[in-house]
């Protein structure tokens, strides 16, 4: 299952390289992307916090479905959309 060839993801329209076996959260953090979304209440930037599926802070749109980035393994061609992170949207 684990090979060494790089996998490419698409994050907000831009290509991002990552390593097979990584989680989506791990792949984005490795690129220095820390802000994943804005909190629905105050709209403040948020990123992964617990990295074990409990806090839900890393939930972003993965192939059209909101899922926890820290629990989702990367797959070739995966399309990710950050959710209003850094008040960018």
């Amino acid at each position, binding site marked *: 299952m684990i090979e060494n060839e790089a996998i490419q993801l698409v994050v907000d329209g831009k290509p991002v390289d990552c390593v097979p*076996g990584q*989680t989506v959260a*791990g792949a984005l953090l490795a690129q220095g992307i820390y*802000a994943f979304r804005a909190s629905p209440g105050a709209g403040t930037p*948020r990123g*992964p916090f617990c990295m*074990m599926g*409990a806090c839900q802070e890393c939930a972003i749109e993965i192939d059209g479905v909101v899922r926890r980035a820290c629990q989702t393994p990367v797959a070739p061609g995966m399309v990710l959309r950050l959710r209003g992170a850094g008040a960018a949207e």
Partner: protein
Amino acid sequence: MSGSHDVIVVGAGPAGGEAALAASGAGLRVALIDEGPAPGGQVWRAPRTAQAQAAAARDPDGRQGGALRKRLRDASVTLLAGAEVWDAEPGFVVQCLAATGNHALQAPRLILATGAMERVLPFPGWTTPGVFGLAAATAIMKSEKTLPGKEIVIAGQGPLLIAVAVKALELGLRPRAIVDRAGPRDWLRAAPAFAAMPSMLARGARWMARLKAAGVPILRQSAVVSAGGCSALDGVTVRHLPSGRETEIAADTLYIGNGLTPADELHRLLGAAQTRDRLRGGCRTEVDADQRTSVPGLYAAGDGAGVHGALPSVFQGQIAGLAAARDHGALDADAFAARSRPARRRLARALRFADASCRLMTFPEDDLAEMPPDCVVCRCEDVRRSDIEAAMASGAADMNQLKHFTRLGMGPCQGRMCGLNAAGLLAPEGDLRFTPRAPVRPVSMDRLIGEFDYSDIPVPKPAPL
């Protein structure tokens, strides 16, 4: 996968993995469910990248996890990995969602080995991207052999601080500082118990020597009181607790943890009796010497029943698995006594070590009162301490009322991050919790419904007018 088993085990970490193996070894048909992609839980988390796999082979936790995964592969245990348990009904029916859809598993016996979650004492700025739990550092290092950040600060309390700092050094990342709530006296008090496990004590001493050689400053009796930056962390303020003196440290990443608490949603949902116990992470599930809870057929082992750490969890898991086999009639009294004896002996010894470690990790409940009014308590719904106080002034006296007043605990984490902190603010000496309710994990309706079609709904005839 849906169907009937002799026993269902929820959680495939040290406790649940061993429970499943013990029960299966005694002849029971065992279903083992875990949220993660592979067994191991948090402490024996499976490496996922090629680099992490190579590193795990050289690491004691990595090797133990590998050994557990191999034993489970060789055993006749039905493993359902990557499955989130969202409900457990008496009797027992366990509902879980996997990539393959929803599964309803049924068994007369259920062993809960759900592990622990991390607690973090809230401080202004703890929602800033770049602030992570301390256990998050171990999770990502074990599975991916990377650690986000260039200028990192490691803060909180307990032996995990040292472990994370050393692993960061191994990745070529020198922490800017370790900020430890405990002082030398707290560590000295733990020393005799740590000496009961010479191998662990030796590992700790080696780690301390490496941190010293690398020149990593350890700020004792100190805590991070605020984190700066908006969309990215730019620094932390550290307070020396006895003197109140504050210093600023530039950092892009903070890993912080104040101990663990049992992930006991299912225990509470099924009505198992619990006792307040700060040493065990706030609250523990009452179990007898064989890990039976107050609910017939329900067993609890490992940190999910009360925080003890990985080693006691192994032995509690073995005892729970054998007890389930005994109660099922697969073992007679003599066989049960003989098979569980080694685990009981080792458990007693492991507990001495664990208690010392748990004391260092006891959550600083009293410091909740020091939290500034504008500090966010409920991350999901942006509920601040001042909102909680306004609700209390308006008459909110328990957790469910607080939820109605403020939306605290109504976000996707379902109160996991805020529940105990809010309860501590609401009634420091009380034992307030949210009412446990299914689903205990967020589940999306479309996945739950699966292949459902409107024409499948049985429509009763309309009542005659």
